[in-house]
C-alpha cells in the first residue's frame, strides 16, 4: 500500500486540494454569508462559522491536534459541523453512519485507535467508552478553532455491507474532492441535495461539492418521509440532486414531485435501468439527467449522460483515451469492473485489513459487466449470483426485464432452494400504486411478466414464481435489500 500512496501523491494534478488547505478554509473562502446548510430543523448560515465552532471544546489544538476522532452523531448537520472543525487538525476522522450497529463500536475504536468521540448526545455510545467524549452543538457558540494546521487528515468511511462488520476505508480530502468534470456546470448559487446520508461516499461527494464549490445544501432527515424531503428540497430551491434508483422510484410516488424543478438529476449506487431513466426524464424534462458509478473504495469512476441505460462501450474499450464522462481508468478482468484513479481510497483500516487495490493500483468493484451491442450492462454482483444447476443468474439482469413492464414499480429477484437444481429463480414484484389496488389485474399482469421473461431470458433465468407484494425493503444506504450474506 505504501507504493500506492506514493503513486497517488506523485500524480496529484495541479489545483487538486493538496491537504494543506483545510475543508474549513476552502468552505469559508467563498461568500459564506450568502450560503447555508439546512435540515429538518432549519438553516445554518455558513457565515456564522466564520469565527465560531460548534464543538464544546476548551482548546481545539489541545483537544484534537494529531488525534483520531470518531464522529458519531445522530444528525447529519452535527457531523458536518464537526468535520469542518477537525479536517486539517485531527490525524484521522471517522464518519460514523447513523445505521451503524453500536455493537461494532468497541472493535472500531480499537482498530482505528480512537482518542476522542464527538457526539450530539443522541448516538447510542457503548457504556463506559474508553475515550474522551466531546459534544457538538447545533449553534456555533464556542471559541473558533485554530485554522487547519496543515495536516492531511485521514477521512475514514464505512462501507455499506449487508451483514457483518462494515469495512473502514481511508481517504483524504484530496482523494475525496479531486476535480471532476461531471457535466454539472456549477453556477455559484447552486443548491445541492441528496437522498443519501452525507456520511456515505455518495452523499459526501455532494456535500464536498457544495462546500468547496461555493454552493448551499439541503440535508435529508434520517426517518423523514420522502414526500416531506421533496417538499423541503422544492421550497429551498434545490438545483442539483442525487440518489439511488430505489430512492428515485420512491420519490416518483410522491405527488409533491410535480413542484420540484431541479436542473441536474444524478443516479448512482445501483444500476439505473431504462425504465427509471425514462420516468425521470418525463418527471424533469428540463433537467440534465445522468447515472454514475462510484464506490467507497474506488471513488467516482464515470457518469453516463445520454439518457440510456448501460455504459457506452468506448468507456471501457478505449480505456486511457480522454472521454467526456469518464473520470478514471476502467478495465474488465473476468467480467469484473476494475478502476484506477487519483480518487481511489488509500487503504482499508483494521487488524485484518486486506489490500484495497492490486499491485497496479486497480480496485476490483465486484460488479460484473456484460457487453450487448454498443453498451456494457451491469449484470450483478460477483457474490450475488444465483446458481441454477451450475448456470449463473444475476438477479439484476432478471429484474431489468421485469421492470420494463409498464405496471411494475420495482422488483427483487432471489434464489429459492430447489432439491433438483440447488436453486431456482423467484421474483417479488411491487406494482404502481393505481394498478396495485386492482386485484382483477394481478393475474393478467403476472402472465404478461412471465411471458416477457420467457421472451427475453434463457429458460433457467425465468422466475419460477412471481409474487406481487405491497413493498420491498430499502437499506439505509438507499439500496434494495437482497437479504443475502
Amino acid at each position: 500500500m505504501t507504493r500506492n500512496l506514493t503513486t497517488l501523491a506523485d500524480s496529484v494534478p495541479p489545483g487538486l486540494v493538496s491537504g494543506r488547505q483545510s475543508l474549513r478554509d476552502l468552505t469559508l473562502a467563498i461568500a459564506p454569508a450568502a450560503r447555508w446548510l439546512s435540515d429538518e430543523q432549519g438553516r445554518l448560515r455558513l457565515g456564522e462559522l466564520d469565527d465560531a465552532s460548534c464543538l464544546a471544546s476548551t482548546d481545539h489544538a489541545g483537544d484534537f491536534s494529531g488525534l483520531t476522532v470518531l464522529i458519531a452523531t445522530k444528525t447529519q448537520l452535527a457531523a458536518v459541523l464537526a468535520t469542518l472543525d477537525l479536517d486539517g487538525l485531527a490525524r484521522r476522522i471517522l464518519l460514523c453512519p447513523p445505521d451503524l450497529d453500536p455493537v461494532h463500536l468497541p472493535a472500531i475504536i480499537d482498530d482505528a485507535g480512537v482518542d476522542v468521540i464527538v457526539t450530539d448526545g443522541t448516538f447510542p455510545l457503548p457504556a463506559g467508552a474508553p475515550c474522551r467524549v466531546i459534544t457538538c452543538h447545533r449553534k456555533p457558540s464556542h471559541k473558533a478553532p485554530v485554522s487547519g494546521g496543515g495536516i492531511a487528515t485521514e477521512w475514514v468511511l464505512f462501507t455499506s455491507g449487508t451483514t457483518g462488520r462494515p469495512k473502514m476505508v481511508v481517504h483524504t480530502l484530496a482523494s475525496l474532492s479531486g476535480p471532476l468534470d461531471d457535466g454539472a456546470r456549477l453556477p455559484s448559487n447552486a443548491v445541492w441535495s441528496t437522498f443519501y446520508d452525507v456520511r456515505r461516499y455518495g452523499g459526501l461527494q455532494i456535500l464536498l461539492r457544495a462546500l468547496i464549490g461555493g454552493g448551499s445544501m439541503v440535508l435529508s432527515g434520517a426517518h423523514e418521509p420522502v414526500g416531506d424531503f421533496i417538499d423541503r428540497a422544492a421550497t429551498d430551491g434545490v438545483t442539483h440532486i442525487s440518489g439511488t434508483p430505489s430512492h428515485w422510484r420512491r420519490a416518483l410516488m410522491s405527488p409533491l414531485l410535480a413542484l420540484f424543478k431541479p436542473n441536474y438529476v444524478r443516479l448512482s449506487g445501483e444500476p439505473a435501468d431504462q425504465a427509471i431513466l425514462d420516468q425521470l426524464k418525463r418527471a424533469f424534462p428540463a433537467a440534465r439527467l445522468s447515472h454514475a458509478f462510484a464506490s467507497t473504495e474506488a471513488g467516482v469512476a464515470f457518469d453516463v449522460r445520454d439518457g440510456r441505460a448501460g455504459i457506452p462501450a468506448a468507456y471501457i474499450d478505449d480505456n486511457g483515451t480522454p472521454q467526456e464522462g469518464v473520470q478514471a481508468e476502467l478495465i474488465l478482468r473476468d467480467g469484473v469492473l476494475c478502476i484506477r484513479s487519483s480518487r481511489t481510497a488509500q487503504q482499508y483500516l483494521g487488524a485484518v485489513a486486506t489490500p484495497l487495490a492490486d499491485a497496479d493500483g486497480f480496485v476490483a468493484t465486484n460488479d460484473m459487466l456484460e457487453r450487448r451491442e454498443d453498451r456494457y450492462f451491469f449484470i450483478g454482483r460477483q457474490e450475488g449470483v444465483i446458481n441454477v444447476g451450475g448456470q449463473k443468474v444475476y438477479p439484476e439482469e432478471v429484474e431489468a426485464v421485469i421492470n420494463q413492464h409498464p405496471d411494475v414499480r420495482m422488483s427483487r429477484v432471489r434464489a429459492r432452494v430447489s432439491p433438483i437444481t440447488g436453486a431456482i429463480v423467484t421474483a417479488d414484484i411491487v406494482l404502481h400504486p393505481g394498478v396495485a389496488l386492482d386485484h382483477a389485474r394481478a393475474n393478467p399482469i403476472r402472465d404478461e411478466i412471465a411471458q416477457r421473461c420467457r421472451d427475453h431470458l434463457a429458460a433457467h433465468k425465468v422466475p419460477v414464481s412471481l409474487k406481487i407484494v405491497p413493498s420491498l425493503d430499502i437499506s439505509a444506504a438507499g439500496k434494495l435489500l437482497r437479504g443475502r450474506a
Partner: protein
Amino acid sequence: MSIRATILEQITAIARQQNKHLVPLTDQLHLVDSGLDSLCLAILVANLEDELELDPFASGTVAVPVTLGDFIGLYEAATV
C-alpha cells in the same frame, strides 16, 4: 383434484411452456426419459410446493425418485 392428477397436469403444462416433447406418462416411466430436463423438474417441484403446500424434499434426506410412480408416491406419502 387428486395429487396424482395435479402432478400430471403440472407436468403437461411445464412441458408445453418449456417446449419439451413428453412421452406417454406411466408409473414405470423413468423421469430421465420423460422429456423433462432438470430445470423442468425443479419448476415442477416448486409449483407443487406452491399448489399443494407439500415439499417432500424438505428434510434434505429424500432420495431422488427414479420413476414417475416413485415421484407421485413421495407426494402421496407426504400427505399422510
